């Protein structure tokens, strides 16, 4: 997940403008222009042609993003499907955990995480050729990119809050509980 966050920022730095709709670029108005600098330099515009001398380093960022996504999403999806089938989530989120804790976890597992995967796929030309419904569902490729960004912000806030609470409630005991059981 750290790799996804880090490389997500690397990719965002190549073009820190967010749009709404099917398409958007430097020649069209942005919905939001993020106050972060670009990770490459270009030499200005000659009409609609952009000149530049230093190319961005997005290539490895994108490949590492997908490496991390494969490792996280495939076992993660199996875990969630098994958890749903086995009643694990129903038991934990609705009975064992506190109301707000259970609701937050349910939101993360069943809403935010599936949406961040789907908005990621909605940016793919090959996947949206096969499933154009992804473009319709999110209002276009650039809308999907914008939603993907805000889901990233929400999930990072969740993880930060989660880690702070884990540390405050006894780090070693919680780590054992999460992995091998008591």
């Amino acid at each position, binding site marked *: 997940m750290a790799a996804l966050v880090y490389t997500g920022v690397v990719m965002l730095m190549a*073009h820190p403008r967010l749009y709404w709709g099917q398409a958007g670029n430097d020649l069209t108005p942005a919905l939001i222009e993020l106050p972060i600098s670009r990770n490459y330099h270009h030499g200005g515009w000659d009409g609609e042609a952009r000149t530049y001398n230093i190319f961005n380093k997005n290539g490895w960022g*994108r490949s590492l993003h997908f490496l991390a996504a494969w490792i996280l999403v495939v076992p993660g999806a199996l875990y969630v499907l098994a958890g749903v089938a086995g009643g694990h989530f129903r038991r934990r989120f609705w009975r064992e955990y506190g109301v707000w804790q259970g609701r937050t976890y349910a939101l993360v597992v069943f809403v935010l995480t599936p949406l961040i995967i789907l908005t990621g796929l909605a940016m793919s030309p*090959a996947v949206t050729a096969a499933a154009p419904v992804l473009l319709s569902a999110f209002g276009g*490729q650039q809308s999907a990119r914008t939603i993907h960004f805000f889901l990233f912000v929400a999930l990072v806030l969740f993880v930060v809050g989660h880690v702070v609470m884990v540390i405050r409630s006894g780090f070693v005991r919680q780590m054992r509980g999460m992995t091998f059981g008591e």
Partner: protein
Amino acid sequence: MKKLVTRRQAIVAGLASMGGVALARPKALPPTYGSLLRMADDVTYVAHRALLPQDALVREYSERDITPFPAIGTTNARVDVADWRLSVEGLVARPQTFSLADLKRLPARTQITRHTCEEGWSAIAKWTGVPLSVILDAAGVLPSAQYVKSHSYDDYENSIDLLDAFHPQTILAYAMNGRDLPVPHGAPLRLRVERQLGYKGLKYLTRLIVTSEFDDGGQKGDLANGWAWYTGI
């Protein structure tokens, strides 16, 4: 209640399935040079080829969806169109060259599609050109062929597999938004590979080489510069 799957089993099953995808590789894959990043690219390539319908078309838009379109990369390579030829060579039965007038006499396809740049932006334009499949059929692709490599006169190289090469929306475009292809966008001829990122659509085309060998494209090639070869994403 007995758990259906324990967390430990889920972790092991997940890692094992990754290995399974890696083992079920098709005959031809781009080299990884031992890089984890290139291995992930290959996993994506195999997964796309295995899971996505091979002939799915990208969405085509209407005239009113057309947007301004930044030109990047080389934007000022110039060639005398009267002398310019596209040569088709390599593993073909009938190697040949085409002038721009020859290409314009062939069956054309017009499509309004979205260009997805690896930087994160996108733009929509109307492209008119000859489907690459028409050229490949005219030249007669030999059975041992695996890739179609394109070469530009600003000295870039790139290749795609035959599945994308014969895709109906993969065209050699000589017109953009109803006018001759402008110089910044690759005049007189550029490739459009609509199911991959923009950088696969080489501008300023001059040669098409049908080959059975994966070719990195050398110093200016994608892999040498850390860029994925397959970018259906």
